[in-house]
């Protein structure tokens, strides 16, 4: 993604941090793909739930990295929501596996 040209770039003139951010994005993206593999592969239901949960967590990291990359805080709310409520699907799915009835 093309970072907007911003005046504040002098502070980190070496581009090292930018390089690190970019690399981290790839690495985290790769982690997402690994989780995806588990999501599709299974074999058990809890495995898939776990994979989805892992996807959520990696997505938070990815969002933060994207925010750094684009130098914007606009993704804060999204990351906050995933962190705060992303586990709901994990909880709900697990509860379904345990009891079938998620609201008892």
């Amino acid at each position: 993604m093309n970072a907007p040209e911003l005046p504040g770039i002098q502070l980190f003139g070496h581009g090292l941090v930018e390089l690190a951010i970019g690399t981290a994005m790839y690495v985290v993206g790769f982690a997402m793909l690994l989780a995806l593999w588990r999501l599709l592969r299974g074999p058990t239901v809890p495995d898939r739930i776990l994979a989805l949960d892992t996807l959520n967590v990696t997505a938070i990291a990815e969002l933060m990295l994207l925010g750094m990359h684009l130098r914007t805080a606009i993704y804060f709310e999204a990351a906050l929501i995933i962190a705060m409520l992303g586990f709901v699907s994990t909880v709900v799915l697990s509860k379904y596996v345990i009891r079938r009835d998620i609201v008892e």
Partner: protein
Amino acid sequence: MNVFWELLLVALLFVGSFFILMGGIGVVKLSEFFRRLHAPTKASTLGVGCVLAASVGYHLFVGSDPQPRELLITAFLLITAPISAHLMSKAALSLRMDEWPQLPGRSEEDTHVPPRPDGGDDESY
């Protein structure tokens, strides 16, 4: 000073992404559910924590959003990760995965919950 912070941020990013990757690798590589369950805890604690710290620092110095509120994300993760883990393991336990396919490196006792030391009967999982 600048270089120090710069290197710190790079280090944080490196550590963070490394552990997140570990989480991913763990989820794929490990042979059995309960072992895999350990992976995302790593990712969500140290991995995401480091990235968030890096993010706070970066925004602080770049000046795009010089506020530490992203720490709240970590706070929420620290609360929710145990809930998820707890429920997922309960789900796995409730399935008593007896007919799991035999995976390499898996020892027999993995799937069995040992009896409670006091002999109490616990069916709640």
